[in-house]
């Protein structure tokens, strides 16, 4: 193609995939017109084409000017600034389909051409296949859609990274809107872990929202998020209920008890697939943790009358109230029994501690508190999944999973804003493990992961996938990103602090949506994780505009600088940031606070303390809908 309009210069130096070219005098005007459209020459990040025979090689401009001169030629170059450095990325037959990777290299003297919009379209533009979604358009080329391959996006995992305010949530909302389009993907399956309740509003049409202490009156039709404790494995259960044990022996005793409880429950209510022989302490079989706690509590804190006949456990010395009633407590409400103090004096009825060697007093007191406090109800008193004393439940796990991954709406938002911080990490880990196990084992079934893959979107991932935490969440997500591909579970990691995310997890992400990233350590982390040699592109990260992303990796043909098409205004996520001064005129704003509105006449700090003591943001003064 002897297109002189697009001619930029000639190849002068080839070093691996890095090519130096010298610009021709003609192209130095800086601005050329092709097909009536103006192009600026030598924009970092823009594409060039090197025709070789019937093929074209394509590259990205990564450096322009004096420093792009090959080292040895610095002396001899009088006009040292007419150079560019190119990173080669792929090739394609003339007018054919572009492919990543190179089968040949350019040689000295090959012509280098600018890539016009028409050619770009050839590279990027895919035929209208339903497995490509359009997320926006290529920046600086409005007519070229930015298409992402859904197959690769879901199974090869992805990461969305960007500084706060770079448009991360909007990008995620935009992707979700596209993926949940019922016409295109009538049975897409997406679970979002939403730590701040940002997405409910934005995705309300296509999603079910599960939230702890859900607000039934809310427009969003929230449902109650429940994670039955008995579905957790033993390690997760311990972390959430007992905490650390003092020694291995205590742990083993508790483990054996849990197993026994599960066994008894299973014998009473046989469940398909579970058998007494194959039962393990990790099996998801309902049992009453309340009964277990009560039993252990008596063993550890109980006292008994020494003088009476029979076993010590039959002669417990309960304290009595003023009416003479024994204070036996109530296991289901987490109220512990109260025992008489020990008596060893001569002549009186002797009261001793029950014999036993368990030292789990602290753990039991802790669990007792959790069984009583309402904010742990989502896990310990999960309504219809709450086992009775015999370990029978009104509903089994199938209903739970059906709600989460098999409902009529493609997206399920798990709003974890009400989870206590101390168990957040474990809760997320447990939740993801439940999903993983279920879809993994059901891989042959039509509802399983292989046949209806699940995309798990993890918002604010740096909080629970932190490198420093050897926690449950980090472990299970590592498993998902390593093996999930085979079983139909894809992860989308969203974070503003990629440098804090476990590197194993990040390195397994095949596609990156990199929005503006200003922090140097985050940027270098991303640059080092990205497989391509695209320094030129990643150096653009700090100067991207809001809502602009560089998409690179497996789901796209070529790295592309994309302007993400924001969803309509009412479908944008709520950043939920506190408002300092409202940008909306006060008459039109719903926001009654901030620094711009004067303080109310009678502030009430008693209510403020009430919320803290009750550990519940809702004060009792609020009129509930009946």
């Amino acid at each position, binding site marked *: 193609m002897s297109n002189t309009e697009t001619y930029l210069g000639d190849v002068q130096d080839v070093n691996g995939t890095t090519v130096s070219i010298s610009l021709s005098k003609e192209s130095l005007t800086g601005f050329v017109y092709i097909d009536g459209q103006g192009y600026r020459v030598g924009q970092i990040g823009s594409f060039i084409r090197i025709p070789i025979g019937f093929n074209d090689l394509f590259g990205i401009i990564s450096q322009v000017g004096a420093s792009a001169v090959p080292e040895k030629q610095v002396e001899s170059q009088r006009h040292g600034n007419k150079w560019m450095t190119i990173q080669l990325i792929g090739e394609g037959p003339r007018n054919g389909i572009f492919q990543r990777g190179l089968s040949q290299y350019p040689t000295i003297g090959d012509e280098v051409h600018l890539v016009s919009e028409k050619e770009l379209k050839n590279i990027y533009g895919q035929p209208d296949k339903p497995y490509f979604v359009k997320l926006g358009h290529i920046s600086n080329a409005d007519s070229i859609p930015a298409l992402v391959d859904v197959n690769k996006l879901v199974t090869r995992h992805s990461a969305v990274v960007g500084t706060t305010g770079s448009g991360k949530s909007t990008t995620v909302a935009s992707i979700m809107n596209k993926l949940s389009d019922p016409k295109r993907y009538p049975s897409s399956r997406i679970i979002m872990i939403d730590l701040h309740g940002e997405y409910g*509003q934005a995705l309300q049409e296509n999603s079910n929202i599960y939230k702890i202490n859900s*607000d039934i*009156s*809310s*427009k*969003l039709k929230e449902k109650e998020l429940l994670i039955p404790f008995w579905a957790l494995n033993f390690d997760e259960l311990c972390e959430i209920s007992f905490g650390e044990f003092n020694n291995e022996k205590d742990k083993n005793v508790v483990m054996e008890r849990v197993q026994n409880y599960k066994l008894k429950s299973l014998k009473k209510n046989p469940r398909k697939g579970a058998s007494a022989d194959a039962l393990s302490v990790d099996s998801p079989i309902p049992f009453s943790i309340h009964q277990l706690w009560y039993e252990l509590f008596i063993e550890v804190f109980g006292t008994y009358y020494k003088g009476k006949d029979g076993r010590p456990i039959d002669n417990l010395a309960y304290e009595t109230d003023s009416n003479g009633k024994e204070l036996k407590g109530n296991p289901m409400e987490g109220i512990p029994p109260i025992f008489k103090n020990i008596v060893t004096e001569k002549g009186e009825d002797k009261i001793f501690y029950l014999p036993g060697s368990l030292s789990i007093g602290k753990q039991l007191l802790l669990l007792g508190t959790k069984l009583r406090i309402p904010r742990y109800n989502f896990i310990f008193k999960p309504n219809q999944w709450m086992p009775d004393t015999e370990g029978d439940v009104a509903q089994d796990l199938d209903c739970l999973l059906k709600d989460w991954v098999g409902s009529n709406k493609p997206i399920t938002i798990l709003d974890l804003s009400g989870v206590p911080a101390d168990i957040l990490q474990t809760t997320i880990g447990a939740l993801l493990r439940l999903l993983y196990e279920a879809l993994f084992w059901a891989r042959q079934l039509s509802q399983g992961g292989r046949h209806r893959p699940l995309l798990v979107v993890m918002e604010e991932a740096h909080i629970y996938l932190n490198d420093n935490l050897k926690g449950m969440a980090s472990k299970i997500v590592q498993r998902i990103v390593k093996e999930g591909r085979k079983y139909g579970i894809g992860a989308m990691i969203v974070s503003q602090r990629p440098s804090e995310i476990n590197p194993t997890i990040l390195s397994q992400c095949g596609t990156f949506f990199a929005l503006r990233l200003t922090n140097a350590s985050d940027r270098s982390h991303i640059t080092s994780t990205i497989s391509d040699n695209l320094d030129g592109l990643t150096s653009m990260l700090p100067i991207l505009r809001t809502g602009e992303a560089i998409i690179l990796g497996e789901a796209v043909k070529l790295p592309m600088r994309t302007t993400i098409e924001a969803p309509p205004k009412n479908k944008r996520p709520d950043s939920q940031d506190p408002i300092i001064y409202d940008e909306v005129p*006060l*008459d*039109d*704003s*719903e*926001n*009654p606070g901030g620094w711009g*509105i*004067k*303080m*109310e*006449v*009678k*502030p*009430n700090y008693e*209510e403020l303390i009430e919320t803290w003591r009750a550990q519940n943001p*809702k*004060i009792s*003064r*609020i*009129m509930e*809908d009946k």
Partner: protein
Amino acid sequence: MEREPVDSSNIATIGYDVDSETLEIEFIRGGVYQYFDVPAQIYEDLLSADSAGQYLNAHVKGVYRYSKI
């Protein structure tokens, strides 16, 4: 609490509980707020105001304490 729809560019519905003097406002954008210890007169004025948003801003916001629901 029963809320009545109002004609406003900002507010969707307004409700009031006489016994506890609680004013409840639902905005078109979705937020619901309860204002506490609001006299019944304010509620009536709010309903009959030409612009509920304006009235709210002038006489309720910054005067009565509230909680987001």
